[in-house]
């Protein structure tokens, strides 16, 4: 009897955790992947480990320590890159290692062994508390509201920041707020996938979506779907096989990525074998002389060759 209650609790927690993780990671991940902020996000993740260490040492919730470290390091890097006082990638590299170093030092200084430490590094559904799930749920709501209210503004600022500055005085505000939300998303997902692997939870789903769509809003939706499938399946496998959740989730996501990529390639090959006319644009829809239709293809090839 006790066994079944435990299993039921585990399934609910696992499914809710997977759902909220995939929503937050899908929204934040689409933003960081398309803005090419993956390395910055890696820096935020590892810097936040410093906060986990201090949390252990000082005896407060390590997630709060991680959140403070994560947000401060994210804003710090954005600030430095806005001011252009330092090479951004070097700053991130320093922050990355410094956060890990602080974390390790404080964990060693803490008397006794910390049994939960492994769950922070590798992620575990067993140690995820109800409070963690609720926090991720609230974060999902915040991100859904934020991205749907400011969708156009966020899209245009991250596509072309310099141009956005010509019409909006709020570009920096949006960059800081969005980056802080990304940092918080990463920190809350550390409980699910672990410091070492959480970044992939954010980056793999958008890359699965970008195989077949280039429209921002669709990338978000498909990222959430792919993320949910990967996370839920990963948890199930991790539970029954007794291996760390983070690793199983990432493994499952990469398999999904490979399958989607394979199916897409197969689909493309098959559709290319159809009569060649289906690829040509109707002549009437292009107002230019027919010869200019040649231009895009050749100039794209040139760009690709560079």
């Amino acid at each position, binding site marked *: 009897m006790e066994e079944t209650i435990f299993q039921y609790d585990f399934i609910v927690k696992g499914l809710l955790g997977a759902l909220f993780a995939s929503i937050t990671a899908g929204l934040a991940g689409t933003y960081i992947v*398309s*803005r*090419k902020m993956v390395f910055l996000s890696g820096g935020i993740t590892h810097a936040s480990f410093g906060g986990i260490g201090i949390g252990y040492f000082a005896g407060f919730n390590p997630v709060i320590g991680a959140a403070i470290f994560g947000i401060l390091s994210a804003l710090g890097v954005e600030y430095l890159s806005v001011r252009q006082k330092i090479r951004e990638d070097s700053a991130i590299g320093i922050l990355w290692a410094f956060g890990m170093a602080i974390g390790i030092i404080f964990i060693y200084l803490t008397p006794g062994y910390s049994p939960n430490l492994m769950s922070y590094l590798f992620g575990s559904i067993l140690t995820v508390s109800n409070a963690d799930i609720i926090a991720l749920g609230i974060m999902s709501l915040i991100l859904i509201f934020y991205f749907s*209210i*400011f*969708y*156009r*503004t966020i*899209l*245009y600022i*991250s*596509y*072309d*920041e*310099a*141009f*956005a*500055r*010509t*019409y*909006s005085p*709020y570009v920096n505000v*949006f960059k800081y707020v969005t980056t802080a939300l990304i940092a918080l998303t990463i920190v809350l997902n550390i409980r699910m996938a672990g410091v070492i692997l959480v970044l992939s939870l954010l980056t793999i789903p958008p890359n699965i979506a*970008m195989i077949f*769509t*280039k*429209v*921002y809003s669709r*990338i978000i939706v498909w990222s959430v779907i792919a993320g949910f499938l990967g996370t839920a399946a990963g948890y199930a496998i991790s539970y029954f096989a007794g291996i760390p959740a983070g690793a199983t989730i990432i493994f499952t996501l990469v398999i999904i990525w490979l399958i989607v990529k394979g199916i897409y390639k197969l689909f493309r090959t098959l559709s290319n074998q159809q009569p060649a006319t289906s690829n040509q*644009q109707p002549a009437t*829809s*292009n*107002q*230019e*002389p027919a010869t*200019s239709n040649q*231009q*895009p293809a050749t*100039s*794209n090839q040139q*760009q690709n060759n560079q």
Partner: protein
Amino acid sequence: MPYLFEMKSVSVSYGAGYVLRDINFAVNERDFIGVIGPNGGGKTTLLKVILGLLKPVCGTISFISSLADGKRIGYLPQMSTGDNNYPVTVTDVILSGMMIRKRIMSRMSSSDKNKASQVIDELGLSAFAHSSLSELSGGQLQRVFLGRAIIGDPILLLLDEPGNFVDSNFEHDFYERLRILNRRMAILMVSHDIGMISSHVKSYACVNMGLHYHPSSEISNEQLLAYGCPVQLITHGDVPHTVLKTHS
């Protein structure tokens, strides 16, 4: 005549020395001004001051109310400042030009989207409406950015070296389009190629740290001297010829 904006003794500096010095300049409705001058003479800086991206170290710039309240300025940057691999469609990029008259929380209405497809048709980009930017050639990209600059019905259009990317198929069409746009908006077009723009603009502003305004589209010796270096002038005639410096 009502001016759209007026600069009074405006000077701009990036730190060491002046880029623009003591500029007095006003743009009126329906102006079509070619902004010429040597590279590094401050042409792009002038546009950035008008856009409010750079604050003058001294001097004032005053706008008429419709420019001061909302920034009804269309801008075509010299080169693409965005990431061409970003997951954004041609329609999205052109729609982003509507932001000059929107609030940060605005959504795009169906009339905005109709407007975008109308602009896309006019620019001959209908086949690419849902393409991502990486599928476009340089000339097509430039047309997308022109679309972004004009969709919000600006009353002042700033073009920075539009000739750089305009492909020869589109060149005539491009200047004809500007002539039509000029009926409802003032245009300030930066170019280092006097020959190319001479038959299109109504007047010139020569920018080389200072600014000299020439109210006619005739090019004078004095204007060429503002370059501070030898300039080869190409003119149109029955027989192809170029005009070189007179023998001393």
